[in-house]
């Protein structure tokens, strides 16, 4: 055992030095590929933005592909409240979604068009949204 450790005695009670306070929290957003949206990845504690970026690179930029990072002071984020802020109303909103129309539209077309013509026409629909 080193001398230093031998000379350190276990002791109880308050520390003699004053409390130091915490670093500030920063929210981290990472981007996996150029052009992708940045996504919330987590938080780091840092003294300033540059340090936050450095920590974010270490914590969130190493375990998967990452091409860009944003850090934002947590206090700069204003958020809604799960309990009191209804964002997506619970009433029927299919009138404002494409899929609210896909079945009636298909049914009506079927009465008017041959199946193969309809199939050709539907090729230009945006499939991912229906």
């Amino acid at each position: 055992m080193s001398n230093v450790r031998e000379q350190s005695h276990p002791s109880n009670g308050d520390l003699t030095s004053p409390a130091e306070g915490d670093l500030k929290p920063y929210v981290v957003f990472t981007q996996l590929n150029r052009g992708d949206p940045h996504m919330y990845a987590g938080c780091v504690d840092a003294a300033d933005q540059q340090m936050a970026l450095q920590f974010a690179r270490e914590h969130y930029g190493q375990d998967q592909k990452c091409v860009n990072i944003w850090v934002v002071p947590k206090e700069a984020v204003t958020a809604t409240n799960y309990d009191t802020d209804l964002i997506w109303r619970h009433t029927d909103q299919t009138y404002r979604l494409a899929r609210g129309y896909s079945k009636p539209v298909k049914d009506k077309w079927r009465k008017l068009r041959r199946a193969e013509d309809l199939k050709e026409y539907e090729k230009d629909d945006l499939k991912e949204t229906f």
Partner: protein
Amino acid sequence: MSGSANVGVHVDHARDEDPAKMAEFEAKINAGELLEPDDWMPQAYRQGMLKMAEHHANSEIIGALPEGEWITRAPSLRRKLALTAKVQDEVGHGQMLYRVSQDLGKSRDQMLRDLITGRTKYHNVFNYPAPTWGDIAMIQWLIDGAAIMNQKTLADGAYGPYVRTMKRINMEEAFHFKSGEDMVLTLMSGTKMQRQMGQEAFDRWWYPALMFFGPPDKPHAEQLPPMRWRMKTVTNDNLRRRFINRFAPAAIDLGLKIHVVKKDDNGMVIERKPDENLRLDETTGNWSFTQPDWDEFYRVIRGNGPCNAKRLALRRFSYEQGRWVRHAILRGNAGLPPAA
């Protein structure tokens, strides 16, 4: 509805630009990479993208005007909800696109002012009237349909913020288009009067829809900067052909007749005859058709369309009426109402 296809992007490329940086820029584009606002890009590219995004933003908010007029007259509660949501979407598209434009260096207020004073343009198609509910149906089927076709290809472009905005917008356009299809199908499966209303609206909108994709291609369009730099990815004529191949047979099956029309100064049809050039070429799979009247197109762009003055007057009115609201917000004393 929306779109930016017919904005004339004349970019004077490569002038006074560092050749090494220029080569790197073009290599990036050829590699399919997306450009971000802080990346180096030639001045002409930044200006061209700004012009395109601003024109698109202008078109979204002007496009909401003819449809907004019909909200109070929608034929059922569900249609009223849908049209309200659609108009709200379009204004939202305008907001997103003004944001993209601001990042390219122009102030939003300046853009709104330039639109009102005619220094900048919006899409030509919104200078035509929507006198019946049938027009609302045709606009959502044909014009939103054309907008999706165009915007799908713009989403393959190279400028990151614009591309991401297109993807977001297209999700909502899919709703506009489907609800338009539903309205058109309802009209054309309805009474004789409904079908006639559908036909008359179709006669008013078919040619504006064909013009939507912009004037015929310049020679070697693929090599000119807008396409070489992937600001656009498909030529006007190719988009128009895709549109006709999809919509002409659908219209015929709906019981619609495709007419070549003559309109009066108010945009109302005064003469129509069947399009004699309309036929499917079995070997190519393409439909041939009578070209739009391109003189009319340029006349309307220059401000002499049926509704140019009306649209801008309404925009001016709302800009001036909304002044106190903007001032209150800027002064920070317009508290938001408490959440319901």
